[in-house]
């Protein structure tokens, strides 16, 4: 009988650090092709609509940027959390909290119209997301409560709250009873970058900026070192005088703030009003983006575009091949599996060992 055996590498493999996400992508495509064949579609057509078709036209590239922006913003923040060993998986809720907080101005004070509105909205979105993330962070730092479960529970709470507010107090009085707020006025809309070419707005600029800044902080500053030390060895971090409860707060505030910024950018940009559902699961997909980007902010930018492509490709394949748009979600889940599996190659050599080999070793050791 053959079995897998892991042999720890003396040093982590530079080669596999670079190519493991690519191997994972290739494996996902192979698995996807098999899945599509089972569904009775030509795998080549399906992969074409998923990964090539959305890249062929300019307007479609703009849509790609619209989808990538929230994914990158959220994932960059999550990388700080995951590197410091804080498991914030409630980014979807913080995204919604930011969207609601940022929408207060255009919805409740629609007559307040000048150039100050948009910067204030973005700041309030950031603050709203950060405040919502502060809840699980505080509970973890103060009471040692499991942040995975609390942050996730708050996602459901945020979704229900959003549902209530757009059907209740914030419903557009002139909106034919549709569950949505009034349209944002012109000062409250995130401007498009190149209106003649497509819909992409400033969200993608925020996302790339956030990635570059956090890349610098993580790689080049003492704070970044602290984050990584506390993540890899909390004990060593304590000896160095780093406070892990302050780190919990910081990591959650950064990732919650960025998720909130993503939320308000989405409603002020692509959507233009609040609706009962404002995210196709960006907060969860961003977890995949963070790992595919190997928790490196610059890698995350690239990974964000890959996952954005899977959303667009899902739509294209649905229109052209009649494939369920749910297939995209299955695809994304598979991708994370392969990414995590391939990351093993960075730290371990894998070999297949038969019983005979083990017996030989035992003899040698004896």
């Amino acid at each position: 009988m053959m079995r897998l055996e892991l042999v720890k590498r003396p040093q982590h493999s530079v080669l596999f650090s670079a190519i493991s996400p690519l191997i994972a992508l290739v494996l996902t495509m192979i698995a996807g092709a098999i899945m599509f064949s089972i569904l009775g579609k030509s795998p080549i057509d399906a992969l074409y609509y998923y990964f090539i078709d959305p890249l062929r036209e300019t307007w479609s590239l703009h849509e790609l940027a619209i989808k990538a922006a929230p994914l990158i913003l959220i994932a960059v923040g999550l990388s700080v959390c995951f590197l410091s060993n804080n498991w914030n998986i409630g980014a979807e809720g913080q995204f919604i909290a930011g969207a609601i907080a940022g929408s207060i101005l255009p919805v409740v004070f629609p007559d307040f119209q000048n150039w100050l509105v948009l910067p204030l909205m973005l700041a309030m979105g950031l603050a709203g997301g950060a405040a919502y993330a502060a809840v699980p962070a505080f509970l973890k730092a103060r009471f040692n409560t499991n942040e995975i479960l609390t942050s996730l529970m708050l996602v459901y709470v945020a979704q229900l709250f959003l549902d209530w507010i757009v059907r209740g107090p914030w419903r557009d009085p002139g909106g034919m009873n549709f569950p949505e707020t009034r349209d944002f006025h012109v000062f409250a809309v995130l401007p498009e970058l190149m209106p003649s070419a497509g819909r992409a707005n400033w969200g993608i600029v925020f996302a790339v900026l956030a990635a570059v800044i956090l890349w610098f902080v993580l790689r080049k500053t003492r704070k970044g070192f602290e984050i990584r030390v506390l993540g890899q060895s909390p004990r060593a971090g304590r000896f160095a005088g780093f406070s892990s409860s302050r780190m919990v707060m910081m990591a959650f505030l950064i990732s919650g703030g960025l998720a909130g910024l993503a939320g308000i950018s989405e409603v002020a940009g692509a959507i233009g009003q609040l609706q009962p559902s404002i995210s196709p699961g960006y907060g969860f997909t961003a977890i995949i983006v963070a790992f595919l980007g190997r928790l490196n902010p610059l890698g995350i930018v690239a990974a964000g575009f890959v996952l954005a492509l899977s959303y667009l490709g899902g739509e294209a394949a649905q229109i052209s091949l009649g494939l369920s748009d749910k297939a995209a979600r299955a695809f994304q889940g598979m991708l994370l599996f392969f990414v995590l599996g391939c990351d093993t190659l960075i730290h371990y050599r894998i070999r297949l060992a038969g019983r005979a080999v083990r017996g030989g070793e035992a003899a040698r050791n004896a």
Partner: protein
Amino acid sequence: MLESVLITIATAATPLLIAAIGELVVERSGVLNLGVEGMMVMGAVTGFGVAITTGSPWLGVFAAILVGAAFALLFGFLTLSLVTNQVATGLALTLLGLGVSGMIGEAFIGLPGVKMAPLVIPVLSDLPVIGRFLFAQAPLFYISILLVIGVSYFLFSTRAGLTLRSVGDNHDSAHALGIRVIAVRYAAVVFGGACAGLAGAYLSLVYTPQWIENMTAGRGWIALALVVFASWRPWRVLAGAYLFGAVSIGQLHAQVIGVSVPSQFLSALPYLATIAVLVLISRNRRLTMVNTPACLGRPFVPAR
């Protein structure tokens, strides 16, 4: 009145109980599988699909258990054989389960399901108040109670249970004693997946015999919270599941009666209650320290 309330609480509590008791065994072996939600939703869609195709709810249950176990095996392969991060892999399992079940289930939306008939035990079910609550339930209800008894006995009264707990508390010592740590963990993980699948089948065959996308609605996560709440003890999982069942049924009744609170706020109650309970339990640091399996979530690579 009391009788019918008790019965509805049991229907809300049973899926939580089944999923949580499985995860308890997994965590006792030192593995944290956050994929309960994904395995549960896969169980729900498989159970529903097989039951309406074959007409037999039992075949549905059986298939759901198999699919839950298969998903768990996938998780086991990654976390145990390839030592990937357990938290991230569990999340991957949940995302994959939600995606795949949505895809498979698209064909089932709106179809009438097959409801599992209750198993009425004669004479005993005629007892006042508790008769119908304890003795006229769906067969899976009895299985959930048997699971608690069985797991409790296994963990604390058998040698194999002791082995499993030792692997969860100190995998290095267990390994040194010649216990096959990885094999024990594989078994625990697969058992947990089978339970999650069964819990999913309960949802789509007993609780609401139909398929709705994401119909688990966070129950897998609440089951995970229940294990912490119960400080890894089977009988406390039972108590916790019925407490949560009572909260979710309470809010449903309040919505029906038409309490002047928005329905969304009432729907949020089970989630808020989960947070409150987690805080209350984890505040007591000593209690959690004593009961948490010491190797929970820690990877194990045998040194040679």
